[in-house]
């Protein structure tokens, strides 16, 4: 144990009595909220589906990219044969009008794009935001001003418009999912950075940080050992709400035809092709629309739950809820 650790430990305990609860406590507080719990259940299911996509498609015996001319009625312009968009024992959720590609396989593979890009973009945003926020909070006045004004501009700009414009100038050969992660990540770090800067400024003046500095810790060490642990709660709270917005952005960009490129299946893209079929084959619209809706809602419910759970005042409120539901607890 180093000097700064020794000095930090008692100060941290007394100065921040409502310090970030650990992962176990977070989970206990999340469990008390029904909406958040439902969100977690849906997310776990979606992640499993995304991970097991090849397995699920194999189980159904279909390939996401294979065309099935016999499954659509070419005389009617390509409307799926059978009811509910061509649902059958072979095609569990029907087929895509026009091409006859299997919808179940395309939807489960689409979960990979949606979740993968949504989560990866959030990671990029959080890393950038924490780095910029810490630098602004710890740096000199000039650096702080420069970074804070840049953050203001980033926050004001409509992400979607800039993402679309950026996607226009990148060479076509660049792998699309990586590009989407980078573009969303580079445009969306403003909120995290602003929160981290504010937290850093208020933590910086606390005794335990001063003690660490007196103990000879450098800026980098202070940032890493003393500040980052206390930043975890606000950063986790904010980033939990970034995930659904990134998933929605990816769906939106793919819907506009500038996200992932076909034939890679993506919910947004399926939705956009579904809009031309929505009168002849409403099932085809409802599936991707419903999935995007449920996914975004589940992540939002979880994010909202995390915010309540990590709110310093939440402890008493949640205890009250729990008492109301299960009777008094010691």
């Amino acid at each position, binding site marked *: 144990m180093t000097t700064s650790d020794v000095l930090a430990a008692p100060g941290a305990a007394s100065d921040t009595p409502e310090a970030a609860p650990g992962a176990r406590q977070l989970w206990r507080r999340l469990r008390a909220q029904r909406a958040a719990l439902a969100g977690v259940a849906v997310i776990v299911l979606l992640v499993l589906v995304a991970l097991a996509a090849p397995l699920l498609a194999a189980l159904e015996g279909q390939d996401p990219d294979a065309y099935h001319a016999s499954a659509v009625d070419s005389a009617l312009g390509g409307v799926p044969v059978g009811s509910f968009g061509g649902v059958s024992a072979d095609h569990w959720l029907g087929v895509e009008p026009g091409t006859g590609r299997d919808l179940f396989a395309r939807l489960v593979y689409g979960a990979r794009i949606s979740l993968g890009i949504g989560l990866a973009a959030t990671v990029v945003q959080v890393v950038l935001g924490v780095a910029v926020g810490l630098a602004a909070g710890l740096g000199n006045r000039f650096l702080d001003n420069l970074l804070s*004004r840049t953050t*203001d*501009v980033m926050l*004001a*700009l*409509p992400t*979607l*418009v*800039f993402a*679309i*414009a*950026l*996607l*226009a*100038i990148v060479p076509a050969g660049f792998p699309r999912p990586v590009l989407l992660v980078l573009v969303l990540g580079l445009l969306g770090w403003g909120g995290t950075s602003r929160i981290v800067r504010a937290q850093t400024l208020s933590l910086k003046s606390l005794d335990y940080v001063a003690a660490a500095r007196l103990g000879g810790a450098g800026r980098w060490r202070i940032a890493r050992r003393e500040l980052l642990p206390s930043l975890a709660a606000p950063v986790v709270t904010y980033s939990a709400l970034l995930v*659904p*917005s990134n998933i*929605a952005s990816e*769906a*939106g960009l793919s*819907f*506009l*035809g*500038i996200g992932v490129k076909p034939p890679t299946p993506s919910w947004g893209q399926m*939705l956009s092709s*579904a*809009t031309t079929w*929505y*009168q002849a084959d*409403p099932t085809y*619209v*409802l599936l991707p*629309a419903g999935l*995007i*809706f449920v996914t*975004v*809602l589940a*992540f*939002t*419910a979880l994010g*909202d739950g995390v915010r309540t759970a990590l709110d310093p005042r939440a402890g008493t409120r949640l205890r009250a809820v729990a008492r109301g539901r299960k009777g008094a607890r010691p």
Partner: protein
Amino acid sequence: MTLLTRFALRRLLAALLVLLVLSIAVYALFYVLPGDPARLACGPKCTADQVAQVRTQLGLDDPALAQYAHFLHGLFAGTDISTGVGTEHCGAPCLGFSYQNGEQVTSLLAQRLPATASLSLGAMALWLVIGVGTGVLSALRHGGITERLLTAVTLAGNAVPVFIIGILLMLLFVSVLGWLPFPSYVPLTEDPEQWAWNLVLPWLSLAILESAKYARLTRSSMLDTLSEDHVRTFRAYGVRERSVIGRHALRGALPPVIALTALDLGTMFGGAVLTESLFGIPGLGKSLVDSVRTEDLPVVVGLVLVTGFFVVLANAVADVLYAVADRRVVLA
């Protein structure tokens, strides 16, 4: 000069600075960083000769700073640009020339503005009526069912993308019920009735999402005002409850709502990209998507700048409006 005027001027000056920085960043991003911006600007169908011509026209062989100065000069004072077949004057604000459309970017965007304005202003009117109305109502019945419903709807409204709502509305009202036509934009000047009728769905899609946010803001702001001393005094003097709520409390509760409206309107003017694309409204947002597809770089850059302009301006206007409504801000 009053304090308020000084505040407004300072705020607008700051906005101008941000715009300048933005224009530098955008110019660097689109015209300096890419390997061959002339090819991008000219479009995928250009011959080598045409690309060379565009390169000279844009001054892409000059140092980056000189290029930017030329670009800025066009923006504020106008400039002469070659169109490939001749030279024409491009008045300020000159955003360049779309070689694919054979037209100046500024006039291309000006043609798109009415559709975007129709969409944004109509949706705004709708969400203000629904949002503020619900907000006031739920503030008056604090803790009631409206309030809990509102929290749920806001949670969903914050998250669910507008095109999902739009598609579901379309399925319901066009396919299932058949009450509305499949939306196709009709200019207001051509046929006001058809204009409104075709915009009902886009307006509704935007308004459903936005009004939840406004309801929540109005509610909390209204609750704050209702607990203030002057409201209690009005009540103590026997002012009728309707007048207390409608005239005095509401006025105190509105400044944040007005500020948010200015912000949202700015963003929307920059392009309700998804809504316009879904419903085929030929506005600025759809134009952005179209020009990205056809790789028409000058239009994309122009749109990014125009969007930035609207957003930054809206931020400044929101701050000033807030200050007008609540003078305490000026002193801060």
